[in-house]
């Protein structure tokens, strides 16, 4: 059964169709790859799912509930988390604070909680502190809890953004090029983590990725987008062996060696 469904979703900018009548469905507990050349509409599709853009037409359903038109914070609260391509960590906050801020069960929207006795406030925070440390360890940033995010390397910032995303406890994770701009060693770390998230945490993952070897290695199902439309879908092997896709994607090199599952 699909957990997320898009029905005939369209979005135009100044008359140019960025997403054109896209219908998709995503199964729970799977990794779905969303691939296509630059400008195909992949990131726009993520914007539409997460509420940063409103579709001109069509509908988006999450667990049977219509979510298009809801503000981004409501969609995130429903259980759809997103990793941005340009990481977007809170630069002046520490690693620990970056993760703590993401928890949904904290009393951060109630300023009067600040007036509770110190011990009571500590009790409220204790559980989240433990969880935050768990996620920091999960992504391999242990020992860096008190380092400011802006002082981390780009790859470490990606890991931090993933830890923060995990702290949201979203059921669906939308990952926009999680391995872009990071070194080969770090790519391996991130991919292992994505696989663990599905196996151990039972997350549903939708990943935008340009590296075909990565898609072949981790995705269960792949959609190929071009000029705002889904033009192919299927198993990774089928997609990557399709001549038309190879023609559209010509010039993209799969140079990063990735270990098979």
């Amino acid at each position: 059964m699909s957990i997320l469904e898009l029905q005939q979703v369209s979005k135009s900018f100044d008359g140019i169709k960025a997403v054109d009548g896209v219908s998709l469905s995503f199964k729970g507990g799977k990794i779905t790859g969303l691939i296509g050349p630059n400008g195909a509409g992949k990131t726009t599709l993520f914007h539409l799912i997460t509420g940063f853009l409103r579709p001109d037409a069509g509908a988006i359903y999450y667990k049977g509930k219509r979510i298009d038109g809801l503000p981004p914070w409501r969609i995130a609260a429903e259980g759809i988390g997103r990793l941005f391509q340009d990481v977007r960590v809170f630069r002046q906050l520490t690693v620990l604070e970056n993760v703590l801020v993401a928890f949904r069960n904290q009393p951060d929207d109630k300023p009067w909680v600040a007036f509770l006795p110190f011990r009571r406030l500590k009790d409220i925070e204790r559980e989240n502190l433990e969880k935050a440390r768990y996620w920091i360890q999960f992504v391999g940033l242990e020992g860096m809890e008190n380092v400011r995010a802006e002082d981390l390397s780009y790859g470490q910032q990606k890991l931090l953004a993933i830890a923060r995303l995990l702290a949201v406890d979203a059921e669906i994770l939308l990952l926009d090029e999680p391995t872009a701009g990071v070194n080969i060693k770090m790519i391996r770390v991130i991919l292992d983590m994505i696989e663990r998230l599905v196996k151990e945490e039972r997350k549903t993952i939708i990943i935008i990725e340009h590296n075909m070897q990565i898609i072949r290695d981790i995705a269960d199902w792949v959609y190929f987008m071009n000029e705002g439309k889904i033009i192919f879908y299927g198993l990774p092997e089928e997609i990557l062996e399709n001549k038309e896709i190879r023609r559209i994607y010509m010039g993209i090199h799969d140079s990063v060696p990735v270990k098979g599952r």
Partner: protein
Amino acid sequence: MSYILHLLILLSIYSVLSLSLNLLVGYTGLFSFAHAAFYGIGAYITTLLMMKAGWGFFPALFIAILGAILLSLIVAIPSLRLKGDYFVLATLGFQTIIFYILYNWVGLTNGPYGIPGIPRPQFLGFGVDSIFAYSVFSILLSGICLLLLWRICESPFGRTLRAIRDDEIAASALGKNIYRFKVLAFVLSGAFASVPGALFASYMRYIDPTSFTLMETVFILSAVLIGGAGNIKGPIIGTVFVILLPEFLRFLHIPDTIAPNVRQILYGLFILILMRLRPQGLGGEYKLQ
């Protein structure tokens, strides 16, 4: 001695003003030009209730805080839906409106003539009449405000405000209702700014609208920026700096005819050099974007 106590009272009043503005500027990343308006609202509501209704200082202060909350909601709810620069303009508009209401509603506020003879507060059954007693009273009341502001800034709420300041889009993607947080920050900032207004009025025993102009907001903002936004110690350092530097400049032997202007030039020059060498302020960590 009276001079030092006078400076202590001013420091306590302006510490609360700068730290409450810091909640907005340094923690939430919102620029507001309406801070002196809330300062004035606190001063006028407290004064009018004490003088026209015969209320005590604390009940009048309580209503002044409620008044500041109500007015800040009226400003925040529509204007925080606007983007960055437009919000700043909305606060500028509010500041101007409040000033002209205070200036022109002569029947209520006595307009440009101001309100003289404001009574001193009663505290624990004693009149806070001497300057020493008032300095203790002012430091106590300001101290409570500073403690509450510190707790708010260091709480999960303050942490989320800093996250919003750093990246609104990312915070929104984590499920944070940015609009709600900004409204709350603006309301808290306005409410806290009303308390030093009440303190100022009952200390000076006279108020008029010229104490609550846009220039006053700029002065408070300069304390925040010089001291450093985004933490607790920065605005306190900044307040000490902006209050005491002009006082120190008084001790320079400058001919009386040009002294005020020279002091202003030296003051401006010092701020320029500081902003060039240490843009995050004397005690700040956060560079305003």
